[in-house]
C-alpha cells in the first residue's frame, strides 16, 4: 500500500480509511491539523487530541497521539482537566458546530473566558451529520434540515465572534478549500499561549448539501473558493466584504494564561511555608 509520509508518521493506518462520506470536508480539515503539527515539529507523545461527539469528533481516533473521544459537547471540559492537571501537555480539541455551540456552548465560552492554553478546531458543516441532517446552531436562517422541513427560523451563530467575545486570545477561520491558510492559522493557534479558536468551514454534501440543493462536494468547495475573503483585504477595503465569509486571522491578543496564573498561586504558597 502507498501512504504519504505524513500519513505514515501521524495516522493510525489500521483505522483508515475514515468513516466520513465521499467529498466530506472533514478529512481535509484533519489533514490541516496534521500539517500544522508537523510544521511545528511537536512531540507526538506530548500531544493530546480531545474530541466530543459527532462527525467531526471521529477525528481523534485516526490520529496517532494521546486521544480522547468524550461525550457530546464536553470535549473542552475534559481537555480543561487534562491541561490543568498537566500543563506540559499540548492539548488540541476537535469539535463540531453542534458539539461546541449547542450542547457544549457553555463549555466553549468558559474555556475561552479562562484563556486556558487549548487550541480548539471547530469543524463547521452547518448540520448534524452523524444523526442524519438536523439543523444546527450554524445552519443559516431559512435553510433546511430534517428537523427544519419548513425552513430554519433560528438565527445562526458566528462561532468566531462567539469565541472572541467570550475571551479567546487567538481566533481565525479557514475552510476546506483554503486548507493551507487553515494550517497556518492552526500553527498560530498552537503557538498562542492561551485559548485559541480556529473555525474550519467544512462541506457536507450528503446532508446539508442535499437538503439545500447545494450540489456536489466540488460545487460546495467552489462556493467556498469564490465566496470567502481574507480579513486583511476587508480591513483595507470594507466594501469587498459584503456577503462574503470572512477568513484569515480574525483576532490576536495575548493575555495571561490560566494554568500559569494558577502556578503563581502555588509559587506564592510555597514561599510562605
Amino acid at each position, binding site marked *: 500500500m502507498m501512504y504519504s509520509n505524513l500519513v505514515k508518521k501521524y495516522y493510525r493506518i489500521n483505522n483508515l480509511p*475514515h468513516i466520513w*462520506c465521499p*467529498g466530506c470536508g*472533514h*478529512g*481535509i480539515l484533519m489533514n490541516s491539523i496534521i500539517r500544522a503539527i508537523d510544521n511545528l515539529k511537536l512531540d507526538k507523545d506530548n500531544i493530546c487530541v480531545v474530541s466530543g461527539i459527532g462527525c467531526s469528533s471521529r477525528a481523534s481516533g485516526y490520529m496517532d497521539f494521546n486521544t480522547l473521544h468524550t461525550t457530546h459537547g464536553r470535549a473542552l471540559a475534559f481537555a480543561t482537566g487534562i491541561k490543568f492537571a498537566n500543563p506540559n501537555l499540548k492539548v488540541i480539541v476537535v469539535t463540531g458546530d453542534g458539539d461546541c455551540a449547542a450542547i457544549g456552548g457553555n463549555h466553549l465560552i468558559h474555556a475561552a473566558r479562562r484563556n486556558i492554553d487549548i487550541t480548539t478546531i471547530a469543524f463547521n458543516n452547518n448540520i448534524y451529520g452523524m444523526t442524519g441532517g438536523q439543523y444546527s446552531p450554524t445552519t443559516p436562517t431559512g435553510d433546511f434540515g430534517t428537523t427544519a422541513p419548513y425552513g430554519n427560523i433560528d438565527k445562526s451563530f458566528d462561532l468566531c465572534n462567539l469565541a472572541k467575545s467570550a475571551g479567546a486570545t487567538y481566533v481565525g477561520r479557514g475552510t476546506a478549500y483554503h486548507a493551507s491558510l487553515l494550517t497556518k492559522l492552526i500553527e498560530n493557534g498552537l503557538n498562542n499561549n492561551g485559548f485559541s479558536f480556529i473555525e474550519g468551514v467544512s462541506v457536507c454534501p450528503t446532508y446539508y448539501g442535499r437538503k439545500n440543493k447545494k450540489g456536489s462536494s466540488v460545487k460546495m468547495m467552489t462556493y467556498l473558493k469564490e465566496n470567502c475573503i481574507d480579513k486583511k483585504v476587508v480591513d483595507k477595503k470594507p466594501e469587498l466584504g459584503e456577503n462574503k465569509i470572512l477568513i484569515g486571522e480574525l483576532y490576536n491578543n495575548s493575555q495571561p494564561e490560566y494554568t500559569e496564573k494558577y502556578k503563581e498561586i502555588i509559587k506564592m504558597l510555597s514561599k510562605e511555608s
Partner: protein
Amino acid sequence: MCDNNSLIINTDWCKGCGICVEFCPKKVLSLSKGKVVAEKKEDCILCGQCELRCPDNAIFIGGKCDE
C-alpha cells in the same frame, strides 16, 4: 532519502469525490469508474493541490520509496 518527485494514487482509499480533479491546475486528473486516475500524468507539475484537498489521503506527491 525519498525524493518527492512522483504523483501517487492510493486507489483503495479514493472515494471518488472529484475534488482533486476539479482543482488540479493542469487538468491532469479525471475520474474513471468512481476512482481518480492521472490521465495526463506527463502534465503534472507536482504542485500538491490534489494532496492538499484530498479528504481521504488517497493522492499525494511522494517518492519511489512510497510506492
